[in-house]
C-alpha cells in the first residue's frame, strides 16, 4: 500500500496541474466576448472574410505527404550513424525500406497527387 502513495500523489499532481491551469485561465481571464475578439487572430491585421474559408485541399495533401516522406529520415539517421557496424546487411535492409517508400511515391505520382492543378 505504502509504495502506492507516490503514485497517488503523482496522479493528484498530474490531474491537479491540468485541472488547475484550465481553472485558472477561466478564472483570471475576464470573459467578455465581442465580435472582434471572436474573430480569427491574424497578427493584428483586420481579418478579411471568414477564416473558415476552405483552404485548397492541395495544401493539406502536400503537407501530409511531406510529413510521411520526411519521417523516413528518422530511420535513416540511426542507420547512417551505425552504417559501418551494420555493414551490407544494413544497407540491404535500408534499400528495401526505401524501395517500399518509393513504391508509395510512384503510386502518388501516378495518382497525380503531387500535381498542383
Amino acid at each position, binding site marked *: 500500500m505504502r509504495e502506492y502513495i507516490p*503514485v497517488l500523489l503523482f496522479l493528484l499532481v498530474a490531474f491537479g496541474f491540468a485541472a488547475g491551469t484550465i481553472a485558472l485561465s477561466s478564472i483570471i481571464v475576464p470573459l467578455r466576448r465581442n465580435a472582434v475578439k471572436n474573430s480569427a487572430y491574424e497578427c493584428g491585421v483586420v481579418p478579411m472574410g471568414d477564416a473558415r474559408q476552405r483552404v485548397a485541399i492541395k495544401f493539406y495533401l502536400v503537407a501530409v505527404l511531406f510529413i510521411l516522406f520526411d519521417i523516413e529520415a528518422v530511420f535513416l539517421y540511426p542507420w547512417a550513424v551505425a552504417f559501418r557496424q551494420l555493414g551490407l546487411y544494413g544497407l540491404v535492409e535500408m534499400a528495401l525500406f526505401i524501395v517500399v517508400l518509393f513504391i508509395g511515391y510512384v503510386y502518388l505520382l501516378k495518382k497525380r497527387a503531387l500535381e498542383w492543378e
Partner: protein
Amino acid sequence: MTPVPAPQLIALDWWALGAVIALSAGAMLLLLLEFVPAKPGSSRAAVLSLLTLAISAAAVFVARDARRSIFDGMFVHDGFTVFFTLLFCAIGAVSVLLSWDYVRRTGIHHAEYYVLLLCATLGMIVMAASNDLITIFVGLELMSLGLYVLVGFRRAHLESNEAALKYFLLGAFASGFLLYGIALLYGATGTTSLTRMAAFLSESPLRGNPMFVAGGLLLLTGFAFKVAAVPFHMWTPDAYDGAPTSVTAFMSAGAKAAGFAALLRVGLTALGGMPAEWGPILSAIAILTMTVGNVTALLQTNLKRMLAYSSIAHAGYILVALVAGGRDGASAALFYLAVYSFMNLGAFGIVTMLGRGREERVLVSDLAGLGFRQPLVGLAMTVFMISLGGIPPTAGFMGKVYVFKVALGAGLVPLVIIGVLNSVVSVFYYLRVTVALYMQEPQGEPTEVSWAAPAVVALLVTLALTLWWGIQAHDLLLEAQRSVMGLL
C-alpha cells in the same frame, strides 16, 4: 566498433516469413497494378488478393512444425503464430470473397480496398507473431490504420464517414493508453522483448511494483479496446454499423482475434501467465462484457448493430477462458476465436448479400419471409444464429462447452453461471432473426438477395465449418491445444 552480426536466416525462416513477405509484396503489387489499365469491371484485384492470401497461408503451412525465433527474437514462428496466421489468411480470404460483389454494388470497387485489406491482415499476423512490444505495436497500428480507412471507405456516405471518425478518434485514444502502458512496462523491466521481460521477471518479480502493474493495466486497456470489451467497447456498434458490411465482417472476426492473440502472447510469454492482479479485473470485465453486449442487443432492430453487440458479448465469453488462465484457458480461447470468426463472417456475409444494387437491407424485419423465398439464405442464417446462440449441434455450442468446461476446471463457478445465463438471454435476439425469416410476412417491398458466386462460396465455406466443428470439434481442439503448447 564491432560489426553487428547480420541475422542468419536459414531456409526455414524464409518460409516462416513467407506470409509477411507475400502480403507486403502483394499489397505493393496491387498498388502498382493500378496503373496497368484493366478491363472495366475486372476482378483482378480480388483475384490477386486471394492469391496472395493463399501463398501466405501455404508458406506458413509448409513450415508449420518449425519453431523459429527470427530477428533477434522479435518475430517468432511457433504453433501459435501458425494457428493465427492461417486463421487470419482464412478470414481475409472469406472477406475478399464477400467483398467481391458487394464493393461493386456499393460503388467502392477500387484496388485500394483490397490493398488496405491485405495490409490489415498483415498487421494482424504481425500482432500474433511478434515477440516484442515494439512490433506488436507496429502490427496493431498497421491493422488499425487499414481498418480506419476501410470503415470510411464509402466516402460519400454519411454513416460510413461518421463510423470512421469515431473509430479513428477512439482507436488513436486507446493507442495512447496502450503506448503509455508499454512505456511503463519498459521502464519497469528495461526491455520491450517479451522473452527478456519474462527472464527479468523470473529473477526479480515485480509483484506490486506500481510502474509494472500500471503498465500492465494500460496495456490490457489497449487490447481490451481492440477486442471490444466493456467499458472500452462503445465504438463497436457505431463502427460496425457505419462501415461497409464486408468490412464489418472482416473486422469483427479479424481485429478481435488479433487483439486476443496479442493479449494472450503477452500474458502467457511475458507476464508468466495472466498476472494474479488481473484475475478479478478480467472477471469483472468478462461479466460486464457478456451482460452489456447481450442485454443491449435485445432491443436492436438493425441487424448490423445487433451483431455488433453480439460480437461484444462473444468477447466476454472468450475473456472467461482467459480468466481461467493457463494453457487450457488459452487453447479454449483459440478454439472459440476460430469458431466465432467463421460463424460471424457467415452472419455478416449474409447481410452483405441483402438488397439489390446500391440498396442495402440491414434491418431484422428486412429478413421477413426470406427463409422460404431463399431457402439457402434462410438455412444458413438459421445455422449461424443458433451457433452464435450456442445451441447444439453447431460449432458455437462446442466453443461454449469447452470454454465453460475450462472455467469450471479453474473453479470459476459463478462466472460460468453468469455466462450460461447470458447465453440463454442471447438466444432471444438470435431467435428474432429466425422468427423473421420463417414466421413473418414482409412489410412493404420484400428484400431481394444479390447472388454472386464468390459470396456463395464464402457462405458455403463458413456454413460447412460451423456445422463441421459442431459435429467434429476434436481436430480443431487438438490444433488449438498444440498451438498453445508450441508457444515459444
